[in-house]
């Protein structure tokens, strides 16, 4: 899904970019004419890119303004209309501010670095084996599982009274009672780092594997190995630089999320004081409105932290590139690269196991009765928690699925419209536009959601389903677009030309030829968008004003305490819903194709 992926896949595909540039004149002429023809009838497609970007950038821009103004003292409701730095002074003077900022930075950078290391290690190991295509499919459950469910499950897995301690106690450890170990919500934020890293690893593994498929890694590796480099060292020397360029954007998105998320932090990060994002939310929610400017300053600082964080990461990239070049130039055949990548690969596998384990223990809790330390397994199982939760669960699943389906369907329509517009007008996908698509993933949610809510209230749209769908669209669209763009652009243009030759108009070609051929990528993009939507916490909370509840908002609310069996039901349902959609996405295109064959 990286910015440059499309070019590279074009280069690998049946119609590489240079060939298109050198297309015979009649063919180009024909294309241009086709494009001109469509513009005679006022083509709604033309508006697609502008509409898409407007839907995107307007709320974010308005939201940022709405956050920045009170951060600098402009707050008419309290009679403040003078620019001032008082909110910043108050922010710095808040108890625990410095600790909070330090925690934000260390956990954000550490978890992103770990996830990247794990992903690279895994890809390097995978490159020595065949069958990575099947691996991508196996990643689906890890990707589809929402952060909150993973965080809640991990918390129980590793707590000093948790599952792992129960399995080895007391026969091995001698712990008749849970040891007084600060594991979950530890003061250094390590359990928080772990929670972020294990979930983000799956995403980065998918990105790295995809990039690896595009850069002709196999040929480069074979050449390097012929020169006597061991497989992992060869990977680090020749493949890593090529793929890193491609996964840079996803890495920034991971960094931005890790520096600013709330939902994982409330479960796994320490609370006294918590990371900056949680502090901002705490002050925003205080009904002492005089804290609002302080909260706005914290949200603005959160934006600065992310911008500076990405800048610092970029500098580290440049330094790393120099070191890498020097290391390659030395020509050493051995070194630390092998063991480091090996550890990374092991970390990736462990991450996958922990994510699955986290979901498994929550599933177990949902049917557990009387499960106490140190029982490794619940003494009795029952369905009464599910029975009790059923009425609420039906509503929650309904709302969650409705919002996800609407947001994803709109995102699909917009993405397809933009891509079809691009194809008809023979436009090159601009790198700038791709950066814009990433804006909602790079700007911390906190920094613009508060401000965006002012706009929603002004439009009398707060707490409506429409507002929630819109807020979700901001985050769903980038993922849908990026997962659809490559297959769409890689589609052999000759099919469209043949259809045109047979007399089909552009719309008929689009509907009867392109869409069926793209059934599988479209289904996958739908599943990706759906699972992104299901996992969204802050956007749901803000746009829904707390009155529109989804599985995710419920899971976060419950994670603060509540009965762990009930939490188990919600967390498991939250993880299962996107999984079902993924399974359907894998099955439906095949069924459709079979039906078409029968019909033919």
């Amino acid at each position, binding site marked *: 899904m990286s910015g440059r992926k499309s070019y590279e896949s074009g280069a690998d595909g049946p119609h590489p970019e240079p060939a298109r540039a050198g297309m015979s004149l009649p063919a180009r002429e024909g294309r241009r004419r086709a494009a001109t023809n469509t513009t005679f009838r006022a083509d709604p497609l033309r508006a697609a890119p502008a509409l898409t970007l407007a839907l995107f950038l307007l709320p974010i821009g308005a939201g940022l303004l709405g956050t920045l103004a*009170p951060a600098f003292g402009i707050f008419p409701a309290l009679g403040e209309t003078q620019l001032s730095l008082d909110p910043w002074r108050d922010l710095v003077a808040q108890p625990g501010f410095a600790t909070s900022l330090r925690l934000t930075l260390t956990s954000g950078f550490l978890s992103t670095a770990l996830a990247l290391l794990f992903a690279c290690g895994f890809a390097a190991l995978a490159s020595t084996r065949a069958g990575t295509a099947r691996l991508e499919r196996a990643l689906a459950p890890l990707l589809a599982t929402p952060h909150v469910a993973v965080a809640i499950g991990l918390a129980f897995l590793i707590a000093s009274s948790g599952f792992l301690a129960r399995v080895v106690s007391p026969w091995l450890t001698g712990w008749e009672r849970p040891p007084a170990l600060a594991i979950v919500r530890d003061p250094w934020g390590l359990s928080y780092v772990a929670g972020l890293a294990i979930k983000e690893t799956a995403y980065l593994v998918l990105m790295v594997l995809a990039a690896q498929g595009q850069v002709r890694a196999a040929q480069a590796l074979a050449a390097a190995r012929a020169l006597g480099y061991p497989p992992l060292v060869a990977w680090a020397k020749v493949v890593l630089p090529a793929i890193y360029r491609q996964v840079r954007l996803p890495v920034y998105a991971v960094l931005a999320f890790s520096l600013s998320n709330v939902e994982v932090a409330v479960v796994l990060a320490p*609370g006294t004081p918590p990371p900056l994002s949680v502090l901002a939310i705490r002050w925003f929610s205080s*009904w002492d409105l005089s804290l609002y400017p302080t909260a706005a300053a914290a949200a603005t600082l959160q934006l600065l932290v992310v911008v500076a964080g990405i800048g610092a990461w970029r500098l580290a990239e440049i330094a790393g590139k120099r070191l890498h070049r020097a290391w390659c130039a030395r020509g050493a055949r051995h070194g630390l690269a092998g063991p480091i990548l090996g550890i990374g690969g092991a970390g990736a596998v462990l991450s996958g196991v922990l994510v699955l384990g986290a979901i498994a223990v929550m599933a177990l809790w949902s049917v557990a009765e009387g499960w106490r330390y140190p029982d490794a397994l619940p003494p009795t199982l029952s369905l009464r928690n599910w029975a009790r939760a059923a009425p609420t669960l039906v509503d929650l699943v309904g709302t969650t699925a409705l919002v996800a389906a609407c947001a994803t369907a709109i995102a699909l329509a917009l993405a397809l419209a933009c891509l079809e517009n691009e194809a008809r007008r023979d436009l090159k996908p601009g790198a700038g536009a791709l950066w814009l698509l990433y804006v909602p993933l790079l700007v911390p949610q906190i920094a613009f959601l508060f401000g965006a809510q002012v706009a929603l209230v002004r439009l009398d749209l707060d707490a409506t389903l429409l507002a929630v769908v819109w807020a979700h669209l901001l985050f769903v669209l980038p993922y849908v677009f990026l997962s659809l763009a490559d297959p769409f652009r890689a589609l052999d243009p000759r099919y469209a030309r043949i259809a045109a030759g047979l007399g089909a108009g552009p719309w008929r070609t689009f509907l009867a030829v392109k869409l069926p051929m793209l059934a599988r990528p479209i289904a996958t993009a739908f599943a990706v968008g759906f699972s992104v939507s299901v996992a969204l916490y802050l956007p749901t909370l803000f746009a829904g004003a707390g009155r529109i509840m989804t599985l995710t908002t419920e899971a976060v609310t419950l994670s603060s305490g509540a009965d762990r069996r009930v939490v188990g039901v919600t967390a498991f349902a939250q993880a299962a819903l996107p999984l079902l959609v993924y399974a359907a996405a894998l099955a439906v295109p095949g069924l459709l194709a079979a039906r078409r064959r029968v019909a033919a």
Partner: protein
Amino acid sequence: MRHEPSSARATGLAALLLLAATTLPAQAQGEPETRDFADILAAAEGQTVYWNAWGGDPATNDFIAWVGEEVRERHGVSVVHVKLSDTAEAVSRVLAEKAAGRDEGGAVDLIWINGPNFLAMKEESLLHGPFVEALPNFALVDTQEKPSNVVDFTVPVEGLAAPWRIAQVAYLYDVEAVDAAALPGSIPEMRTWAEANPGRLTHPTARDFMGTTFLKQALVELVDDRAALQEPATDETYAQTVAPLWDWYDALRPNLWRAGAEFPESGPAQNQLLADGEIDMAITFNPAEAAAGAIQGRLPETIRVFFLEDGTIGNTSFVAIPYNAAHKEGAMVVANFLMSPEAQARGQDPANLGAFTVLDLSRLSPDERAAFDQSDAHPAMPAPEEFVRVLPEPHPSWMTRLVADWERRISG
């Protein structure tokens, strides 16, 4: 975390306030409700009541859902439970609506409320009523022996809120881990107990009302002049009055769970630690919590409760109606049903809620009274003679200051 997820709602309110360029003149507090209950019932039919209530306790959530079903069947009134992380969210929404000039058709119809939130709404004239006298079941409420039904945290309720459950501080402990003979009988003894059992006691963060209650209970017992707590706290009286509390707390804190550096976010989160065996003792606002938890499978069967000899803080939970509620009649029908013998008996049963009734049982018919019979109670239910006297809540201003003070001490 109970506190954080609330943000969105509260910010929505700030957004509302931002828009309220001009604040409309304050409307007078709602007029007394003079209609017949029959008229109220008729007007209520078909209404949907948005009941804003703290949503952190599944047992209460289930009870609210049951109430919703009952009033729909009986009176054609639907109930939507808006699950709050903090009651202050509902208060600030009404406040924001008032500032934005939304004097009718407000989003909040009914609030589960008491303490500082009730005081704030009363002071800001945000409440409908007085209305409780218009509700027939209010005649069954005990206003003599249970004074907190009409005086909330020293603040006279004046008919602006209907009582529906009674709470009293008690402490949970695990009989398998704690020697019953060594149980603390007072706040100073609790400190000594923690010294002997480091890491086995904690309390919810003071941002949570249960955590504040832990501090208030200690304050009430340690303070030199208890009467001072019935007056609003001032800059002059506060520091000196609470000094013995912080002395006690500073000595206690190193022996709390996680050495007093981390705290569970809410009462239920604290009770989960008890169920997990990470702690052996915990505060509760419900003497039936051990029984209710065991019956509902949230707590092990080995949990019991104890009280402090000198008495413990008690209060009443109310429901109140905002002045601009869109469905006042429906809200009053729900409030009346909450005070019905049937709803109260169901609430008192530890299998459902385990909350003590606000009613004077002598005013009930023998049949109605039988539903409250506790003779076959769960073994974790304290016997009637174990209950201690109920101490009044301090004025809400003490609570607000204690929270800010605690935050500075912990995070500073």
